[in-house]
């Protein structure tokens, strides 16, 4: 576990090794919950096997704030949260999809294999961020671990069901992304008029269901 400054008002706790670990992620989420109750903490944002804690360095000594983070980390359990079970219907792209062909080539799988590996796995929301409502889903079959594109696509459409860097996700809005597209869902991941605004929350369990 390493703690570094993310500016004078935040610490980044990085507990990652070379591979994603579900136990570490549970601990990150539990530590973030504990920190969120601390009056001196402005934000506790779980990342993928890491945790960003934001505080006010004018009000609080940074040495003291670092101890809050360390204490929360050492006291956090590695028990995974129960989480809701959420199914996301996916219309998978056709055999002619450029992205599916690229994944098939890189992972040495057929397109049928890709779709069945993607829709048979059980995922968990590891982190929410980057874009409004975007989720980093852990649980992707390692056979589908394709690295992100070197040059991101300028516009990946809202609702695109995507994989990249060992994670799965869904585009909450049309935006640039370096991930590969497998299909599409009509579920809106983010709506600022909805309460809560994010369709998926940290700890939720997710399945992708082939809509065909």
């Amino acid at each position: 576990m390493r703690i570094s400054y993310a500016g004078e008002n935040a610490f980044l706790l990085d507990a990652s090794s070379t591979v994603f670990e579900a136990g570490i992620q549970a601990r990150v989420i539990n530590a973030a919950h504990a920190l969120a109750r601390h009056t001196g903490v402005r934000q506790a944002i779980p990342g993928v096997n890491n945790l960003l804690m934001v505080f006010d360095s004018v009000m609080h000594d940074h040495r003291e704030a670092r101890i809050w983070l360390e204490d929360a980390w050492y006291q956090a359990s590695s028990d995974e949260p129960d989480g809701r079970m959420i199914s996301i219907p996916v219309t998978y792209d056709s055999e002619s999809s450029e992205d599916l062909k690229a994944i098939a080539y890189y992972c040495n799988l057929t397109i049928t294999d890709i779709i069945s590996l993607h829709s048979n796995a059980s995922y968990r929301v590891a982190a929410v961020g980057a874009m409004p409502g975007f989720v980093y889903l852990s649980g992707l079959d390692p056979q589908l671990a394709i690295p992100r594109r070197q040059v991101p696509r300028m516009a990946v459409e809202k609702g695109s069901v995507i994989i990249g860097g060992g994670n799965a996700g869904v585009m909450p809005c049309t935006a640039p992304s370096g991930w590969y597209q497998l299909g599409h869902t009509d579920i809106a991941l983010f709506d600022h008029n909805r309460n809560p605004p994010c369709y998926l929350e940290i700890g939720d369990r997710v399945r992708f269901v082939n809509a065909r």
Partner: protein
Amino acid sequence: MIEILTSTALNTVQDFGRPQAMAFGVSCGGAMDRAALALGNVLLGNPADAAGIEVAFFPFRIRFLEERSFSITGAQCNASLDNLSLPANWAITAKAGQILTCGALEKGCRVYICLEGGLDVPIVFGARATDLKAALGGYHGRGLQRNDHIPCGPRTLSLPTGGYGLTCPPLLPERGSVTVHALAAAEYHDFTPESRARFFSQPWRITSQANRAGYRLEGDPLRRASDRELFSHGIMPGTVQIPPSGQPIIQLADANTMGGYPKIATVIESDLRLLAQAPIGASVFFHEIDIDAAVQRQRDAVRQFQDNMMKLSELRGSLIPWNQKK
């Protein structure tokens, strides 16, 4: 109520943003030069974080549809109320029908126009700031366009004829270069000693890929000694990332809340306003600072702002409240 006469879609309503919405993946947002917005508001007796207009593209023109005091702070531009030329960092009362024009920039990049009572647009996740990416907040979640009519909060005070202003406003960076203080970040030691030293010594040019989300810089590329991949992690405005190209990206107000590129340093919060006012083509110098000095600078900035606020509120106390005007 004010009416927009001339604008581009990148001039937006801003306040202090919504850092508490980071957990939803929503950018912190808010004014790029917070000190300028705050001073503009305090000149008018508004709360420091009331919503105003951040003008980054010119010309910008508004018509006052009623009598209303306003202030103009931040970058220096060729500003006038009808034919009256306005000094920088000035507050004055406009009569109904008068037109405020912000013309060519003279120094800095972003002008703030604050209105007495603040701009009265809906609050979304605790803020009125416009988030263009999420299309929320501000005026219908978008930049300002001709014919937009924006309501203002209640009137509070009348200013002396001709208005009043600051004689010693916060400094703006010189045209050619800006120096900001930065604190080493998580992957600082992943870079070669030569690259680390060079990051803090060579000039980095601000490229044309510079907006509210971040600035891409250009210089002799930096090299990492290891190329271990990082998992996605939360990032703060001011984070300086080094993507595989070796050319830095400074993440700013409208940055994504998470990223995966290595981070060499973080620009301290009180210096972000200098970046906000540094134009494309300017050179950025990063000056290394340790945590205690960084906190001290932040504390000094807060104290200086509170002193200014105190002086201004004393000054305003001697002005006549609007409802007691004859």
